């Protein structure tokens, strides 16, 4: 009786063990969810950075795709690119432009720069989504991507604010950077200038999203992996 009972437990244990071994490791990729409002909910900063990097990578991929789609469809032979030089509303921000500059800058400052760039895109992205709907024969992919970019950028901004709170508590630059001059006057703008405005916005979006992605990957290696990725 006793022996068989013990063996039964043993069998159960073995079965559990085996199922555990062969269980697909789905949990690795799933992000732990922190309940809202909990103060001491400790997701490691590394995990936060992982999420931010994934988001920024995704956002830039979308931005590249939407820019290329638009460029192929509307901007061919119109010389938009020459006009778009120095036309980004974020170009006044003094961001590092090469690796040396990026390595020299303090990570706090770089984080704040990321925050600034992200915040400066709040209004333009709202405008972008509304503008896409006004474009004639705009494919659904462009519209969908614009909406997705707007949502994911908001998420990224929230995440970055959390990270900044962690890294430099108390000093969260809360100024709102309204770098964007606002949409062009619709009545004045003809179709060409409307298209260019859109093109320029997408062009700047692609650039800034790449900037953010690059900075975040750099920061992640520097802060989390101690510059040995």
């Amino acid at each position, binding site marked *: 009786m006793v022996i068989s009972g013990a*063996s039964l437990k043993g069998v159960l244990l073995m079965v559990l063990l085996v199922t555990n071994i062969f269980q697909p490791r789905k949990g690795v990729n799933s992000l732990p969810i922190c309940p809202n409002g909990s103060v001491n909910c400790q997701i490691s900063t590394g995990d936060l950075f992982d999420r931010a990097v994934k988001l920024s990578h995704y956002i830039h991929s979308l931005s590249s795709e939407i820019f290329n789609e638009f460029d192929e469809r509307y901007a061919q032979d119109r010389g938009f*690119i020459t006009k778009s*030089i120095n036309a980004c509303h974020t170009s006044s921000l003094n961001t590092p432009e090469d*690796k040396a500059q990026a390595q020299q800058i303090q990570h706090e400052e770089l984080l704040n720069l990321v925050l600034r760039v992200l915040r400066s895109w709040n209004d333009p992205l709202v405008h972008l989504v509304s503008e896409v709907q006004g474009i004639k024969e705009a494919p659904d992919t462009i519209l969908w991507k614009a909406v997705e970019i707007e949502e994911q950028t908001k998420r990224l901004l929230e995440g970055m604010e959390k990270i900044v709170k962690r890294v430099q508590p108390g000093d969260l630059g809360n100024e709102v950077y309204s770098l964007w001059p606002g949409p062009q006057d619709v009545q004045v703008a003809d179709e060409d200038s409307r298209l260019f405005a859109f093109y320029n916005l997408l062009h700047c979006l692609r650039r800034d999203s790449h*900037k953010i992605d690059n900075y975040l990957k750099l920061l*992640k290696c520097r802060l989390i992996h101690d*510059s040995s990725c």
Partner: protein
Amino acid sequence: MQRQLEVKAWPSIIFFVLLLQNTKFLDGQTAPDKPEIIKCRSPEKETFSCWWKPGSDGGLPTNYTLLYSTEKHPEIMECPDYKTSGPNSCYFDKKHTSLWTIYTIVVNATNEKGSNASNPKFVDVTYIIEPYPPTNVSLTVEKTHLLVKWLPPSMADIKYGWLTLVYELRLKAEKAQEWVTHSAGQQTQFNVLSLHPGETYVVQVRCKPDHGFWSQWSPETYIQIPNTFQERDLTLWISIAVLAFVIGLIMIWTMVSKGYKKMTCIFPPVPGPKIIGFDTQLLKTGKSEELLSALGCQGFPPTSDYEELLVDYLEVDDSRDQLISNQDKVHSNQNVKSPHIEPDNDSGRGSCDSPSAFSERHKGTRVTPSTFESVGVDSRLENTAGQSSSDWAAQCIDPEEKSYAWPEEAMPNSHTSKFSYHNITEVCKLALGALNANVPSVVMANEEDYQPKYFKTIESVVEEDRSRQKELEIQSKPGNHNTVWLLPQEKAPFLSAKTMDYVEVHKISQNNALALVPKHNETTDSSKQCSVSGPNKEYTKVARVDENNVLVLVQDSGMQNLPVFQDSHKEYCQIFPQQQAENHMDNFPAV
């Protein structure tokens, strides 16, 4: 005016140019053709190079200059390095490389005869990143697989996170045509499975930045797979098979060693009976009678409340009923001694106490013993279905409980409106009859060991009954108790009551002495009033008390009076301890 002049001048200018070209052709020397910027590329996001394809040099030595401007530095600058990236190229070192800015690049071709500028190229270094292929690709044949390792391109800054690379490798058998491609992610090594032994394989690796272009494939690397190479990764399957075998072995062993246990694991058994004192072995032997006997309301708590109620009734009743009260006292004394029998007594008494309730309960019930048995079985099933023993006891107590109304079922259809206090005695008698009818046949066989004293007395009652039955010419088989007891019930309910009524247990002392009270001699009318004077004529005598607590009774043929009975009782009193005698005497004066 000026415009008119210009318009007029255009044809002459064109003519002049055509003339010039013709003279060039004549001379064989012309200005260089437009060069074309082919490609700009940054291998590591820190530097970049641009290449152009020169047009025709016009037969003269031609200089090529690359001019550029950026967004932040609109002034035109010349290429800092024409040599590093080879002929017709410009290399922008780290100092001259900025990201997220548009380079406007133009290549000028100039010779003696003139110059020609290329179309401007707008370049953002961010989007021209194409790394060098991975280096140091090494192949190692492991036991079950081929391990491919490589290093990232030497110039790429992976460590600081400036550049993020993902890798891809491809391989094929040397003679095969098609490559098999594997994605390695950000890892710098990869295990290749499913290789054929004895074949030579070619492996190449390439890389891609997070946002950018694939590099070239690395140089081909060859590896000969030895013949001893295991074609498939057998260890995994072997381990799985061994594990499954072990598990199967354990399971079989468990099944064999305790198959029943396993079965009960899968199919949970019906919970076993939880009656206190219930012998589960009876279930296995399958003796239904014993089973039923085990159901006889065991563990029933004494109910003093009922006792008091009964006394209240008896106070207003005639003297005959006081005999009954004595009878009940007998039972109460028995309660002290043998709690296992109490339910039976109490059930009967309960019917005495509340005739109305009894009559209600009795509706729709039947009298046959088989019905009783079935009811008993049902009760047992109810109990085994999860009722605790306490619930079970409650069922016995509750007079309203229909499922356990078996004492009444043995009763005749006497629930008509004729009930009165006098009828209480009748009912009590009937109940006792039922008690006697049920208990010996059901409880006695099983409980004899526990309650020998009581049942011996009942046995003596049986003896008495048997003799009475002979008088009534009712068939009986001496020596077979069950038959004796069941027969009257089978005949008729009233008859059963009658046959059992004429001797009553008056008192059983603690020393197993039995006091008997004769009852009235009933003939046909069972509803006849119980009176004190009537039944006293007939009498039964105790012959002796055996050592084994057996009371031997003999029938007294002559009609005896109450004093005789008292005398006989006095004899008992002489035998028994004084205190018990006093207790008995307290009851008797009223008689």
